[in-house]
């Protein structure tokens, strides 16, 4: 009996015909979930390429993940210092050109600080760090990172943060709703006071996605929450790239 799920079949040739799909995982000083994210990428059948915050070069990856953690200790504001790292210059440029970018937790905070995604993340309304399995609804299954899910599908993946309260002004929120850019919503209870129960959003083009919960911690049946609901993020990207 093996504990690991077999690699998803969606792997194989990358879009550029270089063989495996290459997914970059950025490490900032203080990033914590980079190894976990690399593991999730591998389990999905792609090649994980470590990227270092000081290098502008993205090593010809097909997609990039900004993992969770406390980059620069979350000092000043979560994501505020990392946003100015050299690697982000290239990420911003490539994201605007359509490269799939996923920001998880701290990565999401970095994406809002760069304004690739609107809004901001604030201290949870109860002021505590919170770690638990969280139920979500996938609202938008057309992004680069959600294609493996059905719109309306309910999934459970771990949530762990202290600065997870999503805020934006009413106009922005209305726009996100109207354009279907709320990608994930918290179900059952809102864990942190995020406006309109928003757990994650996407940019207009659907290639840049950010969310607070951690799909990379729900990819193996024996580990963490014991669910594999998060694997779809990493297999979605393969599907999207292969079909592109």
């Amino acid at each position, binding site marked *: 009996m093996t504990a690991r799920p077999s690699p998803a079949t969606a792997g194989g040739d990358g879009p550029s015909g270089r063989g495996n799909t290459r997914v970059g995982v950025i490490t900032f000083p203080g990033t914590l979930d980079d190894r976990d994210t690399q593991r999730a990428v591998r389990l999905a059948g792609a090649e994980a390429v470590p990227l270092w915050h000081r290098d502008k070069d993205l090593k010809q990856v097909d997609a990039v993940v900004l993992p969770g953690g406390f980059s620069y200790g979350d000092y*000043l*504001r979560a994501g*505020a210092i990392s946003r*100015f790292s050299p690697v982000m210059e290239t990420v911003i440029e490539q994201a605007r050109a359509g490269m799939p970018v996923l920001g998880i937790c701290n990565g999401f905070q970095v994406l*809002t*600080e760069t304004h690739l995604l*609107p*809004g*901001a993340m*604030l*201290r*949870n*309304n*109860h*002021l505590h760090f919170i770690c638990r399995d969280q139920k979500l609804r996938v609202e938008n299954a057309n992004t680069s990172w959600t294609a493996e899910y059905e719109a309306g599908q309910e999934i459970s993946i771990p949530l762990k943060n202290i600065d997870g309260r999503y*805020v*934006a*002004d009413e106009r922005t929120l209305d726009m996100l709703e109207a354009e279907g850019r709320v990608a994930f919503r918290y179900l059952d209870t809102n864990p942190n*006071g995020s406006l309109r129960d928003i757990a994650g959003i996407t940019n207009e083009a659907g290639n840049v996605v950010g969310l607070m919960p951690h799909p990379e911690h729900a990819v193996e049946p024996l580990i963490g929450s014991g669910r594999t609901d998060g694997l779809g993020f990493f297999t979605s990207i393969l599907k999207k790239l292969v079909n592109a």
Partner: protein
Amino acid sequence: MARVVVDVMLKPEILDPQGQAVQRALPRLGFEGIADVRQGKRFELEVEGPVDDAALARIREMAETFLANTVIEDFTVRVDS
């Protein structure tokens, strides 16, 4: 060396649970008569060289792009006397 202070506060329309938690605790500690509490950040910058208009303009830019996130926060810059 001159000191410049940058105060960063959440915009009034944004919920400030830290300030609220402080305010809620006050009566329990026997402090009455505080109608509202907001909690923000204070930065003390030690500036090399003269704090002239040019320097202040630079610090204002620093506050705008870095020390504060103007999506959610307001800031003020002043020379400490």
